[in-house]
C-alpha cells in the first residue's frame, strides 16, 4: 500500500468525485475567471493601461470607461485587468522557493526527529516571533523595493509555514505500517522519504500553497500600497488603491474596485484550497 494519492484516485471516476465538492467547483470558476482575465488581458481591455489623458482625468464610470479614469486619465478597468497579470504572476513566483524549501526541511525534520527536529522547531519559533509585516518590511527596506525585495523577503520568511505543515504531516506518516515495512525491506532513508512518505504529506503542503498565495497577494498589494512594492507605471492593485486614496470621498470606486479584485481572487483560491482538502481527505 505505498501508492501515491493520484494513483488511488484514478480507480474512482475522478471527474465525478470532483463534481461532488461545491467549493472546488466554485473556487475553480471564480479563480479561473480571474486567471483567464489575466491571461487574455490584451484582448479584454478597452484602452492601453498606461496611456495618460490629462484632459479626461477622474471621469466617472461610463460606457467608454467601465470604471472611469484615474487622476492621470488612465482607464481604470484596463488597469485593473492588467494588474491581475502583475499580482498573480508575482504571487505565483513568490511562493516557489518557500514551498520547495519549507516542504523539504519539514519532511527531513519530521522524518529524522530528535535533534534535527528540535533545531528546525527552534528556527520556526524564532521566525514566527517576528510580526509578519514588520519582518517583511524590514527586509524589503534592506534589499530594496520592487519585485526583488518581495521575492527575497518572502523566501526568507515564508518557508516557515510549509515546514510546520509538512513536519506535522511527516511525523504522522512516519508511524504508518507501510513506512516501517519499506524501511525493513532494506530501502534507503532517502528513498523511503521521497517515495513512501512525501506522496502522503505533499497534498497538505499543496493545499497550503493555495492559501499562501492569498497571503502573498495581500502582502504584495499592501507593500505596493505603501509604495514599497510594485513601482509605477506598472499597474498593480495595491498602487491603484493608493492612487485612488485621495479621492475616497468623491470617487469612491477608485480605491474600492481594486480591493474587491483582491478579495475575489483570494476567495477563489481559498475555495479551491477547501475543495482540495475535501477531495483528498476522502481517501
Amino acid at each position, binding site marked *: 500500500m505505498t501508492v501515491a494519492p493520484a494513483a488511488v484516485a484514478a480507480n474512482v471516476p475522478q471527474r465525478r468525485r470532483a463534481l461532488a465538492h461545491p467549493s472546488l467547483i466554485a473556487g475553480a470558476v471564480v479563480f479561473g475567471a480571474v486567471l483567464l482575465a489575466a491571461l487574455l488581458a490584451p484582448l479584454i481591455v478597452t484602452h492601453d493601461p498606461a496611456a495618460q489623458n490629462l484632459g479626461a482625468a477622474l471621469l466617472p464610470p461610463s460606457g467608454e470607461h467601465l470604471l472611469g479614469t484615474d487622476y492621470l486619465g488612465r482607464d481604470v478597468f484596463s488597469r485593473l485587468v492588467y494588474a491581475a497579470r502583475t499580482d498573480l504572476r508575482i504571487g505565483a513566483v513568490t511562493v516557489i522557493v518557500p514551498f520547495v524549501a519549507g516542504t523539504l526541511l519539514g519532511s527531513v525534520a519530521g522524518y529524522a526527529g530528535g535533534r534535527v527536529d528540535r533545531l528546525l522547531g527552534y528556527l520556526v519559533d*524564532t*521566525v514566527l516571533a517576528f*510580526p509578519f509585516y*514588520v519582518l517583511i518590511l524590514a527586509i524589503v527596506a534592506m534589499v530594496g523595493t520592487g519585485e526583488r525585495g518581495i521575492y527575497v523577503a518572502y523566501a526568507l520568511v515564508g518557508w516557515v509555514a510549509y515546514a510546520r505543515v509538512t513536519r506535522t504531516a511527516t511525523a504522522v506518516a512516519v508511524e504508518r505500517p507501510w513506512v516501517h515495512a519499506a524501511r525493513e525491506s532494506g530501502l534507503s532513508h532517502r528513498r523511503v522519504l521521497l517515495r513512501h512518505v512525501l506522496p502522503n504529506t505533499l497534498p497538505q503542503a499543496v493545499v497550503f500553497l493555495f492559501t499562501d498565495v492569498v497571503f502573498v497577494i495581500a502582502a504584495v498589494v499592501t507593500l505596493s500600497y505603501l509604495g514599497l512594492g510594485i513601482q509605477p507605471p506598472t499597474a498593480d492593485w495595491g498602487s491603484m488603491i493608493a492612487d485612488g*486614496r485621495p479621492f*475616497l470621498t468623491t470617487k469612491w470606486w477608485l480605491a474600492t474596485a481594486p480591493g474587491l479584485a483582491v478579495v475575489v481572487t483570494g476567495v477563489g483560491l481559498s475555495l479551491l484550497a477547501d475543495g482540495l482538502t475535501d477531495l483528498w481527505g476522502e481517501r
Partner: protein
Amino acid sequence: MKASVTPLARRAAHALLRAGGVAAGVVVIAFLLVRLIPGDAATALLGSRATPTAVAQLRERLGLNESLPAQFWHFLTRLVTHGDTGASLVNGVPTRELILARLEPTLWLVAFATVFAVALSVPLALWAATHRDGLADHVVRILTTAGIAMPAFWTGLLLILLFSVRLGWFPVGGVRDGYPTSIVLPALTAAVAIVPVLVRSLRAELVEVLRADFVATLRAAGLPERRILARHVLRNAALPALVLVGTNISYLLGGALIVEKVFALPGLGDLMFDAIGSRDLPVIQGVVIYTALAVVLVTLVTDHLATVLDPRLRRAA
C-alpha cells in the same frame, strides 16, 4: 496536590528557557538584517554620489570597519545596557527614546483590537457552531473566507468610507480627538484582519464543547438552550478566544502597524515607515527587536495562562 504543581512548574521553566532561546535568536536575526543590504551599506545609504569622506564617516559610525563578531558584541552590549539599537542616523536620538515616545498609540490600538476581536469572533463562532452545516454556518464560512483575503489597509479605507465619510461618526485619521475615539476605527480594522482566524479555530472548539457530556447533562436537566449557551458554553469560549488572540499576537501586531499608516496614527508603525523612508537602520532594527520581543513575552504569558486554565493541558505536561 503537590504532584500536580511540580509538572506545571517544570513546564513553566521549560517554556521560559525556550522563550529565552527564541529571544536570543530574534536579536541575532535583527542584527543580521543589515547584512541584507546589497554591496557596501554606507555607500548604499548615502548614494553613489557621496564623497569618500562621508562614506568613511558613516562606515565608522555604523561600526562597519570592525569584524562581524566584534560588531555583534557591540550591538549586544548596547542592547543589554541601554535597551536600544544605537542612535538614529537621522536625528541622533537613541532608538529606545524614539520607540517609547511612539508606544502609546500602538498599545491603545492593540488593546482595543483585542477587545473587538473577541467581541466579534465569539458570537460569530457560537452562531456557526450551533447551526453546524446550516445556513448560519455557511454564511460565517463565506464571511471568514472573504475576510482572510481582505488586506487590512483596504478594510480600513472601507471603514473610513462608511463611518467617517458617510456617517461622520469617527475621525478619518490622526489622534486629535483623543483616545479612545481616535482609536475605534483603526482598532476595528486590525480586529477584522484577525477575526476570520479566530472564528475558524473557535468554531471547531465550540462544536466540541456542544458535544461535551456536561452540555448533554444540562439539557437532560431541562435547562433552556439559551441559558446553557449563555451561562456555560459562552464561558467556555471567551477564555480560549483570548488565548487565541495571544497566540496570534504576532499577526495582530504586524497588521496594527500597517493600520497605523492608513489612519495616520503616530505609533510604532509610523516610526517604522519613516525609518524605512530615510533608511534609518538602527531605528528599523529597534522596532523589529522591540515588537518581536513583545510577541515572545505575550506568547509566553498566554501559553502559561492556557496551561493553568485548562487542566487537560496540565496533565499532558
